[in-house]
């Protein structure tokens, strides 16, 4: 048991240790200061800017920035959708997979543009290597870079600077952050055993019975895997994602995965500290999600370590880890840690199946998806965190009767409306309303696979994952159409899958573009304010007390909205298991 906790603590320490270095690097990149890669990248970027037709010094307003994102994402979406639908006519399709159903392709496209990567498909049986490399792998860079650009624009606005140029930020995020790390990371992953080949599956006779054959699926996995994690995308090359031995073969690759998943959202808070010239406040803000993250890890790990009491009784032991849907090489500790980190950061890759976690795990992962700020998504998570800070400033300002100010700028009606709209309205609408519709038609629409309270969690998890742009799932849910190969063999399409593909598109889009627009407008309006000098009457936001108040605001505003769902889902399931199944 101790061994497991040591692994968890060391992983978290590594993450904290790299934060200042990576955070400072990103600040230099986006403040256009000198960095080590300049000699190679300056000419490359100049060339890219001229191809795209942007000038580096051309600043955009919040509205222009948001519109550029929208145009760009629409064009990218059309490209990926076409690649998937025409995959049978494209090269690099060694297993001869026909086009998937239109709704699967549409859902996959939208899910990848929005940096979500829900898998209503299985990589092996639905998509060719071309679709993976040219379609999904491409979006893993651009959607992550879009999120990072929004985060940086938001930080710029908050600290009183012009927001910058979307195309410049998009390109720099790729050339200076995502691509260099991916190149190094992919090589390390290949060395550790992750395949990187264009060859089709290897067919071998099994050792025990040579009459039976085994198909070993492989492909260009390593380059895909590293950006999947670094960009918090989470869509696996294989159906079973990072639990697959080819995506994540050992403890070292698992560590690389975890660190790459959380490195950008953690470091971006430090980047803010440099922009704001207030490192102390950055660490205080950092402590908010960190404390919540540690709490959820403890809750989840205890559940998985103690295991399922009903099965333990059958095994004749008091304690045996819950290994259903888990790999031996990860065990309870690395699986629980991974589940919490992947839902905290909106990555959505999984190295064990969340559907089979004890209710503790369901509670923590769902709560992460509801809160969205436990470091949160690439760029957007940090921005949400500061939106909460603005609300906390407003609320404490009301309590002590002072004019709410944040970083020397007055918080007025427009900011409070945007921040509260962002946090209090969009997320519940995108989760609870479609969730209620699906639950009203359990047989026709919901496709629940686990009976009882867990079924409610399955439905809500899927929408929460879509709206938070996470992408993990309680995967027993009937949200997948049969594979194109099965359909070619005569399988009929599924009505529940059609419902899930289309209804989650609503949550995906609402959870991505509405908050991005609101964040950029919020940043814009902060940037335009006249700074007011700090006086003794100013409420200081870089203190432990204010940080504590903010945690309270986050838990009250973020969690209370969803508490009824948690009570009826994982909490009720925990009582059910404690009472005895059956």
């Amino acid at each position, binding site marked *: 048991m101790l061994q497991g906790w040591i*692994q968890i603590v060391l992983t978290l320490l590594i993450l904290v240790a790299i934060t200042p270095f990576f955070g400072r690097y990103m600040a230099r990149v986006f403040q256009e200061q000198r960095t080590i890669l300049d000699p190679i990248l300056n000419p490359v970027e100049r060339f890219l800017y001229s191809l*795209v*037709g942007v000038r580096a010094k051309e600043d955009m307003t919040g509205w222009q920035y948001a519109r*550029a994102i929208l145009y*760009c994402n*629409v*064009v*990218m979406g059309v*490209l990926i959708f076409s690649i998937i639908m025409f995959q049978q006519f494209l090269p690099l399709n060694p297993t*001869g997979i026909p086009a998937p159903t239109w709704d699967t392709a549409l859902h996959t496209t939208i899910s990848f543009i929005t940096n979500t990567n829900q898998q209503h498909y*299985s990589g*092996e*049986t639905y998509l060719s290597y071309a679709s993976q*490399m*040219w379609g999904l*792998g*491409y979006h893993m860079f651009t959607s992550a870079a879009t999120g990072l650009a929004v985060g940086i624009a938001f930080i710029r606005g908050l600290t009183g600077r012009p927001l910058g140029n979307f195309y410049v930020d*998009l390109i720099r995020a790729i050339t200076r952050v995502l*691509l260099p790390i991916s190149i190094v990371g992919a090589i390390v992953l*290949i060395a550790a*055993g992750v*395949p*990187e080949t264009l060859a089709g599956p*290897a*067919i*071998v006779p099994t*050792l*025990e019975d040579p009459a039976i*054959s*085994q*198909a*070993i699926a*492989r492909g*260009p996995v*390593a380059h*895909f895997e590293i950006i999947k994690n670094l960009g918090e995308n989470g869509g696996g090359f294989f*159906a*079973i994602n990072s*639990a697959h*031995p*080819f995506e994540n073969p050992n*403890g*070292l690759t698992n560590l690389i995965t975890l660190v790459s998943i959380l490195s950008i959202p953690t470091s971006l808070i430090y980047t803010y500290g440099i922009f704001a010239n207030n490192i102390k406040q950055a660490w205080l803000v950092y402590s908010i999600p960190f404390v919540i993250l540690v709490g959820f890890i403890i809750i989840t790990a205890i559940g998985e370590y103690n295991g399922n009491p009903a*099965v333990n009784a*059958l095994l004749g032991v008091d304690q045996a880890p819950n290994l*259903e*849907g*888990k*790999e*031996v090489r*990860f065990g309870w500790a690395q699986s629980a840690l991974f589940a919490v980190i992947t839902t905290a950061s909106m990555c959505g890759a999984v190295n*064990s199946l969340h*559907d*089979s976690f004890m209710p503790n795990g369901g509670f923590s992962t769902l709560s992460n998806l509801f809160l969205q700020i436990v470091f949160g998504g690439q760029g957007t998570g940090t921005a949400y965190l500061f939106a909460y800070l603005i609300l906390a400033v407003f609320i404490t300002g009301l309590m002590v009767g002072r004019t709410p100010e944040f970083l020397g700028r007055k918080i007025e009606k427009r900011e409070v409306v945007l921040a509260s709209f962002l946090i209090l309205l969009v997320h519940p609408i995108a989760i609870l309303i479609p969730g209620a519709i699906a639950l009203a038609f359990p047989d026709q629409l919901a496709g629940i696979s*686990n009976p009882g309270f*867990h079924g409610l969690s399955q439905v809500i998890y899927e929408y929460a994952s879509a709206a938070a742009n996470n992408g993990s799932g*309680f995967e*027993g849910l009937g949200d997948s159409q049969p594979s194109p190969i099965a359909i070619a063999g005569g399988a009929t399409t599924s009505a529940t899958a059609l419902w899930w593909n289309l209804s989650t598109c609503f949550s995906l889009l609402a959870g991505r573009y509405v908050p991005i627009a609101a964040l950029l407008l919020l940043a814009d309006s902060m940037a335009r304010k006249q700074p007011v000098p700090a006086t003794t009457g100013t409420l200081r936001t870089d203190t432990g007390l204010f940080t504590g108040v903010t945690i309270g605001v986050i838990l009250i505003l973020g969690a209370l909205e969803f508490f009824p769902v948690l009570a009826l889902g994982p909490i009720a*399931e925990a009582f059910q298991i404690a009472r005895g*199944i059956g």
Partner: protein
Amino acid sequence: MSFAREASRAVRSTLVLWVLTAIIYPFVMIGIGQLVFPFQANGSIITNTQGQPVGSALIGQPFTSDRYFNSRPSTTSYSTADPKKDESKVLQTGVSGASNLAPSNPALIDRIKGKADPDPEKAIEGDIPRLQKADVKPTADLVYTSGSSLDPHITPEGARAQISRVAKARGLQPNQLEDLIKQNTDGRSLGIFGEPGVNALKLNLALDALKPT
């Protein structure tokens, strides 16, 4: 800014970044993988003494008989099928998958405990009765299905629980098997991260090399 100018930038940036991240980057990585690490890049395929591929060092295989150390239960039977009757076309692509059974799902308990039913089609043998019949003390890894359905490992305890059965079936001494298990255990990475696991395919290959049946 005019609509045409914005649309043109969107299209140009899409294409430029596509060439960079979807063409140049993956093909360079494939090139490096194939040149520098050809064994890993092609799936860590292991071959027998005749040079025929027998499996992957990273992917498990089904083992259910007494002559071999059994692997974990798998929802896809380790992506295997009979080539003569592969209706679901498993061998065309290879598959992975998991049970996705919730801890509160009675079907999980039925699968582990077994369930009698007058209709033999509906009766479930159960993982624990199956292991007990084979004289193996059940451990968690041997009754729970894995995440990928391709888990190459069993726990060292799960391997040791099978020693007496395999020793009897093969006519070997238990201490010889203890040594084989130790030799085929993958430890924690850097001695810290992950859990030790016994690679069932490698262990059984070593077993065949030690004493062919």
